[in-house]
C-alpha cells in the first residue's frame, strides 16, 4: 500500500502541507503547534468549500471555470446577515437564504453561458459584477453582526476540531460520493474527457453543466455565509482572495486542468498547504514581496512534482 500512496496525485499536496507545518513549528516551538493547526483547519475549510465547487466546474474541461465565486460569497454573506439582522432564531432562515442566493446565482451564470453562448470565463466574470453591485447596493456600508449563536458556532470547536473544519470535511465527503459513486460524477468526468463523445454516448451534457455551475455557486454561498459569521460580519472584499484560492487548491490538489479527472482529498491537502505556506513564510519574517514570489515558486514546484509522477508509467 505504501508503495502506491506516493504516486497518488493528492500525496504531494499533503506532503507539502506537512513540511510547511513542520518548518513553522521548528521556528515557533511546539507550544504554538496546536494553535497553528486549529487556525489552518479553520481557514482551510473555507478554501475547501469553494475549491470543491470549482473542482467540479474545472473537471468539465478547458474553458470551464467559475470566476463569480468571490462575488457570490460576498452577496450571500451580506444579504443573509442583513436578513437575520443579528436576531436569535433566524439562523436557519439565514442559511436557507444564503443557499437560495447561491442557487439563483448559479442559474444566472448558466443562463448566460447557455442562452448567450458566451464562454464561461466571460459569463461568470460579468455576472459577478452584477452580484457584487447588488451586494454594494444592499450593504451601504453597514456592518451587521451575525446572530450570537452563529458567531459562536463558526468560531467554536467540537471534539477539539473547529466546527468550520467539520463542515469542510462533511462537504468533502459528500463531494467524494458525488464524484466517485453517482451517475452525475461519471457524466461529469466523461464531459471533461470529450464532451462530444459524451453527448453521443447519451450523456445529458447541458443538464450536467447546469447542475455543476449551480453546485459551484451554492458552495460559494455556503462559504460566504460561514465566513461572514466567522469574521463577525460581511465585508465587500471578503471573497477577493478566494478566486485564485479556489483555482489553486484544485490544481495543487491534483485534479487535471485538462478536465475529466477530479481529486477530492487533494483539495483538503492543498487548502491546508496554502494556509500553512503563508504562515511559515510569515514566521520566518519575510517581506510581502518575497513571500508572494516564494508562494508562487513553491506552487509551481508542487504542480510539476505531482504531474511528473503521473506521467511516468
Amino acid at each position, binding site marked *: 500500500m505504501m508503495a502506491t500512496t506516493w504516486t497518488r496525485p493528492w500525496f504531494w499536496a499533503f506532503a507539502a502541507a506537512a513540511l510547511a507545518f513542520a518548518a513553522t513549528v521548528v521556528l515557533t516551538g511546539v507550544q504554538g503547534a496546536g494553535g497553528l493547526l486549529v487556525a489552518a483547519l479553520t481557514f482551510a475549510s473555507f478554501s475547501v468549500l469553494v475549491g470543491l465547487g470549482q473542482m467540479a466546474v474545472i473537471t468539465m474541461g478547458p474553458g470551464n471555470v467559475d470566476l463569480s465565486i468571490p462575488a457570490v460569497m460576498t452577496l450571500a454573506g451580506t444579504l443573509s446577515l442583513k436578513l437575520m439582522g443579528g436576531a436569535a432564531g433566524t439562523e436557519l432562515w439565514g442559511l436557507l437564504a444564503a443557499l437560495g442566493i447561491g442557487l439563483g446565482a448559479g442559474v444566472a451564470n448558466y443562463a448566460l453561458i447557455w442562452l448567450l453562448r458566451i464562454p464561461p470565463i466571460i459569463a461568470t466574470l460579468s455576472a459577478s459584477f452584477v452580484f457584487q453591485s447588488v451586494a454594494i447596493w444592499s450593504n451601504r456600508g453597514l456592518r451587521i453582526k451575525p446572530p450570537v449563536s452563529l458567531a459562536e458556532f463558526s468560531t467554536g470547536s467540537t471534539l477539539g476540531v473547529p466546527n468550520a473544519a467539520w463542515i469542510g470535511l462533511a462537504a468533502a465527503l459528500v463531494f467524494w*460520493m458525488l464524484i466517485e*459513486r*453517482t*451517475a*452525475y460524477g*461519471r*457524466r461529469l*468526468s*466523461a464531459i471533461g*474527457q*470529450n464532451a*462530444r*463523445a*459524451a*453527448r*453521443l*454516448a*447519451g*450523456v*445529458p*451534457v*447541458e*443538464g450536467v453543466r*447546469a447542475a455543476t455551475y449551480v453546485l459551484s455557486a451554492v458552495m460559494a454561498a455556503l462559504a460566504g455565509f460561514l465566513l461572514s459569521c466567522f469574521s463577525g460580519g460581511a465585508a465587500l472584499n471578503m471573497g477577493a482572495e478566494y478566486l485564485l484560492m479556489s483555482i489553486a487548491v484544485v490544481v495543487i490538489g491534483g485534479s487535471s486542468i485538462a478536465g*475529466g*479527472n477530479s481529486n477530492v482529498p487533494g483539495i483538503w491537502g492543498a487548502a491546508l498547504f496554502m494556509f500553512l505556506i503563508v504562515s511559515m513564510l510569515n514566521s520566518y519574517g519575510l517581506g510581502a514581496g518575497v513571500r508572494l514570489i516564494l508562494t508562487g515558486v513553491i506552487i509551481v514546484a508542487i504542480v510539476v512534482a505531482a504531474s511528473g509522477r503521473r506521467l511516468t508509467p
Partner: protein
Amino acid sequence: MESAAPVVSLQAVGRAFGAVRALSDVTLSIAPGEVLGLVGHNGAGKSTLVNIVTGVLPPSEGQAIYAGGTPREAGVRVVAQELALAPNLTVAENLRIPQRDLRGLMWRGKARTRIRSALDEVFPDHGIGADTVVGDLPLAKRQMVEIAMAFAEGGPAPRLVILDEPTSSLDASRADQLLRHVHRFRECGGAVIFISHILHEVFAVATRVVVMRDGRVVDDRPAGGYTRTSLVEAMGHVAREGARERRIAASGVEVVSTPEGLRAGQGEIVGLAGLAGHGQAEALARLYLERTSDWRGRSPVPAAFVAGDRARDGVMPIWSIARNLSLAGLAMLRRAGFVDRAREARLVADWRERIGIRTDDTGRPILSLSGGNQQKVLFARALATGAPLIVMDDPMRGVDVGTKGDVYEMIRSEAAAGRTILWYSTEAEEMTLCDRVYVFRNGRIAAELRGEKITEERMLAASFDMGEAAA
C-alpha cells in the same frame, strides 16, 4: 529495374511489452518495387511490426537493417491507423512536421507546392486547399492529406511507404485512386507495406502477402498464391461465405421517419450509403441528437450511437474498459442517483463475454486495447443500453475480418430481436447486408434500394449523377 537490395530487412526480430510478447522471430525484407500486403487479426502484431520498421520501437531481439542507415534516411514513411495530423495547423503546415528540411523564410510556400502536387498526383480532384486548417476537414479528407504527405517529395525521398488501414474512411472511388497510385509508385521502384482488413484491396495491389498471427509471420507468399478463402484460413478464421440469406423485416411498425425521407421499421437494418462526406454522418447525428436529451438521461434509453471515429466521438481516454462500456447505460444502472456497481459489473462481464473483448481485466485502461477491441467496447456500450434504435456511424474502421463477422452476426441477431439498426458505412460490401439502403448524394437521399436490388453496382451508380433510375 532497381537493384534488389532491400530497403529494410528484419532479422529474427522480437518485441516484448513486459510479459506480453507482441512479436517473435520475424525475419522479413522488403525490396524496391514490392508491395507487401500485411494481413492478420487485431492484435496479431501488425502495428508492433510497423513501429519497429519505422524505428518508433527498438526491437527487444534481433535487428532491423536499413539501406540508408536510419529509417528516416532510408526514406521510410508511414500513414498510421489513428490519424496523426495536428488539427490546429493548416494542411501545408502539417507537412513541416515530418519534413525537417522545410525551413527558412519561404518554407510555407515550398510546403504548399509540395503538398499540392502530392495531393494532385494521388487524389485527382481532391478539392483540398493547402491553407485549410486540418481540424476543419472531414475525416476522409484528413486521411487523404496524411496519405499524400507520405508520398510527397522532400527530405529523404520516400522509398518505403507504410499504409496502415489507409482506406478505412475513404469511399470506393478515393480508395481506387489510392490503389492506382500505389501501382505507379511501385513501378517507379518504390516499396509499400499495405495493411488492410479489406481483402480485395490487398489482392488488388499486393505483389506479396504476409500473414501474421499471434506475433509471428505464419505465411509469406506471392499474392497469386492465395485465394480469398485460403487467405482468411491462413489468418485463422473459417470463411463465412454464403451465410447471407436475407432476413425479412420483423414487423411493419415504423420507428424512424424523417422529413428528408429516411424511414426505418422495427427490426430493420437500414443502410446509409454513398460516397464519403455526402451527408450520411450528419443525418445520423441529427437523428440521434433529436432522439436523446441534452438535459436529462432518459431510462429506458431511446437510442444509442456507435462511433466510427473512436478518438473524436467514442473513447473516454482516461477511463477503464468497464467505465467506457457502461457509460451509455448509466441511466438504467442508476439507483437513487448512485451507480449500482454490482449491476454494472455484471453488465460489463456479460458483454465482455458476448462480444469477445480480449482482456483479462476490464479494469484496465481502454487505451491498452488494440483499435479493433476498443471498437468492440463501443459496440457493447451501445448494445448494452437496450435501446430500440442503434445508430452506427461507419463503425467498422480498422476492424479485422474475424471481428467483423462476429459483429455482423450480432447486428443481425439484435435486429431479429426487434431492434432497428441505422448503419452508415463507406464499404459498399457491408451495405449489402442491409434490408434497405438509402444512397446519399450532396446531403440528400438520391435513391432507395430494397432487398435484391441492393448491389454494389446500383449503389455506386446512384452515388453519381447517372444513377437516378437505379431505384
